[in-house]
């Protein structure tokens, strides 16, 4: 009986079986819903964009790791999520080469220089998206109308510049101008709820984020439902503000994160130079995340007050 050589390790000896890969591919799966909606409304061009950014993101990560002589870990799926989310945040008519630039910036500057998965302070897809917004403002604000294929303004820009509202049903279903993935609130909601159900997304962030925007826009005399449905808020709240790497680890911290992001969105939408502030709000709160983590360390079981 003594011939066997056993394994020794520290307890625990069993594991939940959950893995990073499974989480990432689930998110990618959930993202397929808004992707399909985007392709439905904007045509094959949107699909090409999604495929391009995803491939570019994965390749960038692989090349970066090869150059550093580190193991290539693109199969953890996080680069795929980043790539998809970047495309979903782009106007459907963006030149492909710009999308590739966005992917490279996302992964290289947004993620790999900090050491890769799990170490980046900012949401990589949003780093890419905001970089593009600031770098190529004209192309990034040229919107295609899903109905007739002409260019036009997004509902938020119409509201901000001319004060014209768009009706809720169209916003909810998604046949309005905007980024590929942000048009259809219903598709995002379904994907997001699935992730909450699977436990990959903490409901606290979307709830506090959307709640803050609704309340504040109401107080400031805006139309809360319009502000919830228009622009990238839904996509941001369910898929981007919830990126676990760049958001607080404590429950209270996540609520603060959502509220802070909500305040920034309303500030920018109502008073800022840009019609939309979701990307900026999340990036800004990403910067606050380490401090939030520090300040919201939970009171541990049996903590004794010292001094």
């Amino acid at each position: 009986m003594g011939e066997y050589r056993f394994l020794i390790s520290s307890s625990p000896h069993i594991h939940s079986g959950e893995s990073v890969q499974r989480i990432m591919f689930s998110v990618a799966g959930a993202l397929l819903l808004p992707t399909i909606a985007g392709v439905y409304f904007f045509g094959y061009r949107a699909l090409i964009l999604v495929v391009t950014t995803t491939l570019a993101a994965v390749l960038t990560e692989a090349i970066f790791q090869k150059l550093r002589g580190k193991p290539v870990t693109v199969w953890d799926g996080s680069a795929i999520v980043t790539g998809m989310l970047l495309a979903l945040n782009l106007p459907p008519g963006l030149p492909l080469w710009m999308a590739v630039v966005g992917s490279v910036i996302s992964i290289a500057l947004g993620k790999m220089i900090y050491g890769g998965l799990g170490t980046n302070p900012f949401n990589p897809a949003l780093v890419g998206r905001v970089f593009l917004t600031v770098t190529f403002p004209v192309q990034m604000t040229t919107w295609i109308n899903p109905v007739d294929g002409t260019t036009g303004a997004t509902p938020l820009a119409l509201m901000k510049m001319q004060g014209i509202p768009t009706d809720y049903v169209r916003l909810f279903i998604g046949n309005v101008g905007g980024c590929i993935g942000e048009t259809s609130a219903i598709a995002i909601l379904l994907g997001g709820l699935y992730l909450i159900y699977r436990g990959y997304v903490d409901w606290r962030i979307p709830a506090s984020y959307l709640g803050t925007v609704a309340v504040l826009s109401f107080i400031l005399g805006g139309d809360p439902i319009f502000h919830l449905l228009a622009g990238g808020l839904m996509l941001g709240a369910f898929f981007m503000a919830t990126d676990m790497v760049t958001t607080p680890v404590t429950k209270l911290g996540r609520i603060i994160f959502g509220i802070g992001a909500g305040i920034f969105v309303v500030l920018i939408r109502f008073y800022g130079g840009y019609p939309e502030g979701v990307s900026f709000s999340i990036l800004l709160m990403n910067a606050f995340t380490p401090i939030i983590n520090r300040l919201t360390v939970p009171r541990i079981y049996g903590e004794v007050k010292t001094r």
Partner: protein
Amino acid sequence: MNQYTRMIVVLLIFSVLSGAVLAFSYELANPKIQEQAQKNLEASIKNVLPGITKYEQVEKEGLTFYIGLDDQGNKKGIAFKATGQGFGGPIEMMVGYDPKEGKLTGLQILSMAETPGLGARIQEPTFTDQFKGKSVNDPFEPKKDVQVITGATISPAGVASGIKSALEKVTKIYPVGGDY
């Protein structure tokens, strides 16, 4: 000498010397600086009032006007400064106005803090030239009678509203068709 006195004395020597050097340099450079400022002003006035060779400065109701004259001393138009609120800060401009025709004769941006490559393109002739010959009674609304720059609507709007609000005062002092 006690160390504190020495401290004070050395400091004093240094400051006084520095004061002397600076006052001297200032005397040297100041005329040149004034000259430059004058030259810039003159250039911008000439730019917005084509065809003039000299100008007169007039103060009216707290505003400064530069009345442009040609070789023969004929009045060719009025230049004045206007300020608009842009994307990155105030936009200062020189506007040329011909009261006889009730039209603008030119626009030059004197200073601004708009984004390079975007809002900053309001300095380019392609933008400023559209105001040449524009009637002062136009609405000055972006995207309607004022062409904007793609991706940057705020800066042109700032220029337009700056001119419009300045014109409101100016046309009261120098009404269209009136003498000056």
